[in-house]
C-alpha cells in the first residue's frame, strides 16, 4: 500500500484570515442589529395592537351604552360621560329583585303613561317608578373606568396614555354622541402631537331613544 501525501497543502494567510474575520464580524453585527431592531419593532407593533384593541373596546362600550341611553351628558373636558340607561332586566340589587327574588333575571315589561306624553318606561315591577341605571365613563390614571350604579369596572388600561374624548349634541328631537380615543405610541418621531393624532379612532352614535320625526 502506498500512502499518498499531499505535500502542497497551503493554509490561509494572515491577511485572508483577518479579512474573513472582518467580514464575519460585519455580518454578525448586521444580523444582531437587525434582530434587535426587529425585536424592538415587534414590541412596538405588539404594544400598538394591544392598545388599539383597548381603543376599540372603549368605543364599543360607549357605542353600546349611548345607543340604548335615555340621557347622555359629557363633562366640559370631554373626558367624563354620564348616561342614564333603562334597566331592562331585573337585577338582584334592584328594589323589585330584593322584594321578590323570583323576578331576578326576568325582563321588565315596558309601561306607557297615556296621561302624559306617552313616554315608554321600564318601571320597577309593581311601581310607577322608572328603573334606570346611571353609567359613568371616566379616566383614573392609566385606566378607563365604567361605573354602573357604583360598581366599577376597568374596561381598559394602558401605559400609553389612552385618552377618550366625547361630545354630545342635542338637536330638536334627536341626539348623538361623538367619541374619539387616542393614545401615545412607544415609537415617536419627535412630533408627539402628530403621533397621538395618528392613533385616533372615531365613532358617532345616535341615541335610539331620541328619534327624529
Amino acid at each position, binding site marked *: 500500500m502506498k500512502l499518498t501525501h*499531499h505535500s502542497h497543502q497551503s493554509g490561509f494567510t494572515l491577511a485572508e484570515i483577518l479579512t474573513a474575520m472582518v467580514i464575519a464580524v460585519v455580518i454578525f453585527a448586521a444580523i444582531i442589529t437587525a*434582530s434587535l431592531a426587529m425585536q424592538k419593532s415587534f414590541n412596538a407593533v405588539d404594544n400598538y395592537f*394591544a392598545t388599539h*384593541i383597548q381603543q376599540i*373596546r372603549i368605543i364599543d362600550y360607549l357605542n353600546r351604552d349611548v345607543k340604548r341611553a335615555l340621557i347622555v351628558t359629557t363633562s366640559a373636558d370631554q373626558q367624563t360621560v354620564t348616561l342614564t340607561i*333603562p334597566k*331592562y332586566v331585573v337585577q338582584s340589587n334592584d328594589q323589585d329583585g330584593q322584594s321578590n327574588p323570583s323576578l331576578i333575571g326576568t*325582563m321588565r315589561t*315596558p309601561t306607557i303613561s297615556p296621561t302624559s306624553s306617552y313616554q315608554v318606561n321600564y318601571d320597577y315591577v309593581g311601581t310607577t317608578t322608572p328603573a334606570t341605571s346611571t353609567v359613568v365613563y371616566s379616566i383614573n390614571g392609566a385606566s378607563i373606568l365604567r361605573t354602573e350604579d357604583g360598581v366599577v369596572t376597568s374596561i381598559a388600561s394602558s401605559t400609553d396614555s389612552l385618552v377618550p374624548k366625547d361630545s354630545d349634541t342635542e338637536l*330638536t328631537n334627536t341626539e348623538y354622541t361623538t367619541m374619539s380615543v387616542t393614545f401615545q405610541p412607544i415609537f415617536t418621531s419627535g412630533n408627539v402631537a402628530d403621533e397621538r393624532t395618528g392613533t385616533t379612532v372615531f365613532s358617532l352614535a345616535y341615541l335610539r331613544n331620541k328619534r327624529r320625526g
Partner: protein
Amino acid sequence: MKVSLIQNERGNVLLCAVCTIFIVSLIAANVLLNCTARYNQASNQVRSWNEALYAAESGADIAYNEVRKIASNPTNAFGTSNGWTTSGTTYTSGTTTFGTNSMRTSETVDLFYTDPTTGNAWYRIRSKGTSPLQGLKRTGMDDRLSNGNRFAANASTRGDGDTLLRKIDFKYDHFTATYGPTGDGTNKAIVAVSPAPQLSRRVELIAAPITPFEAAIKVSGNFYGLGSAAYIDSYRSSVGPYDPTVKTNPSDYRYVDSQSGTVEIDNGTATVFGDIYGNLYTNGGTATKKTVNVHGVIDNNVPFTIPSFSIPTYLPTPQVSPTKINSNTTVTPPAAGTARAPTVYLLSSFDKQLTINQNGSSETYVAIHLTSDFTGQIDVKPGVHVQFFIDGNVDVKARDIINETGYAGNLQFYSISPTDGSSQHVNINSPGNFVATFYAPSADFTMNGNPDVTGAIIAKSFYGNGNTSWHYDRSLDALGDVTDYRIASYVEDIR
C-alpha cells in the same frame, strides 16, 4: 489503495447560514403569531360583534315593517307567506339569513298594550341577530387587565375586558345555558353552536302608534300662510280651557302647554307668516329666526311622510237610516258605542244640516261615511264624538262646522285618499270659526278669511292668508286612529 486526505472542508458556512435563517425565522414566526392573534381579535371578533347588532337591528326593521302594515295594509301584516306564525297576538318570524358572512336574525312581535282611549295597539319587537365568528377560534389577549376569568361558559362568571363585552359562543350558546332561550330564566340548556363559533345580540324595540293630529299644521307639500298678524299657539284641554294670555306668560303653569303650535312641512319651499308659538320643521328649507317669527325651535332637516288614508276596517254595520242629508236631519244614536265600535251612518249625499244628539248622558261615539262631497252643515251636541269619513271634497263655511263640545277631538274629519290618484280638496270659507280636526293627506287645504280655529290640520298642501288665531289642543296627540307606527323605545339585552 490510495487514501486521499482532503482537509479544506467548508460545511461550517452552510451551518451558519441555516442557524441564522432559523433564528430569524423564529423571530418572524413569533411576530406573525402575535400579530395574527391581535388581528383576530381586533378585526374578526370586533367585526362579528358589530355585525351581530346589524343583524339584530335588521331583524327589528323586518318586524317593524310588518307592524307598519297593520296601519297601511292590515290583511298582509305578518303573513304566513313571509314566514310568520301567529299565536294569539304574538307573531314569530322564521330565520332570515343574509349578507356575505351569513348573518342570521329572527324576531318576535307581541301586542303588549292597548290604549284605553283610542283602542290603538302598541307592539313590542324582540329581535336576535347572530353573526358567525370569522377567523381563528381564539379567545382574546387581555393581558392589560387581569381581574378574573377571561372566559367562562356561564356569562355571569365572565371576567374582564373583551370577554365581558363581546360574549363569544365558541362551543355552546352561553345565553341559552345561562338565561334560557327566551331570556326569562326558564328552559336553560346546553346547546352547541353550529356550524361555527358565533356572537349573538338581542334588542327590544317598542312600536308606538302614530295618531293623526300631532301638530297644529302638517303638510307633505306646499305651504303658504298664515297672515302676517296671525298666530298659532296651543293649550291642553284636559288641563283647562284655552286662555290667550298664557302663551306670553312663562310664569303661568299652563305655559308649558302653550308652546306646541308646531308647523311641519315636508318641503324645502314654503312661505311662512305670523307668530308660531311652537316649532317649525321643514325638509330642506332655509328658515331662520331672522326670516320667520318662530318662538320654538327651527329644524330644516325633518323629512317625514304622511301615509294615504283609507276608511277603517273595524267599523260596524251602518244604520239603516238616514242615507242622505238632503234636508235638515237630527239623529240620536241607538247606543253610546265606543271609539272602536261607534254607531255608523253611511250617507250618499250631504248638503243640508245634520244634528247629532247624545245617547242619554253617555259619551256617544258616531262614525259617518259620506261617499260624495260634503257641502252641508254638521252640529255635534255635547257628549258626542264624531269621526266623519269623506270620499269626496269639502266645500263649507267655517260656521257650518258646529262643535258644541268645544273639543276639537270630538269632531274629526277624514278625507279618504282617492284610489285613482285624482285631486281632492278641502275649502273652508268665511265667515265663522270652527273647532275640529282635519286629516286629509291627499287633499289641498284652503282656508279663507280670518277664522278662530281650534284644532289641527294634516293635508297635502295648505294655503291660508288670513290673520287667523289658531289654537292646537295638545290632547289631540292621543286621539284618532293609528296612521303609522314609530319606534318609541330601544333597549339591548346585553347579557
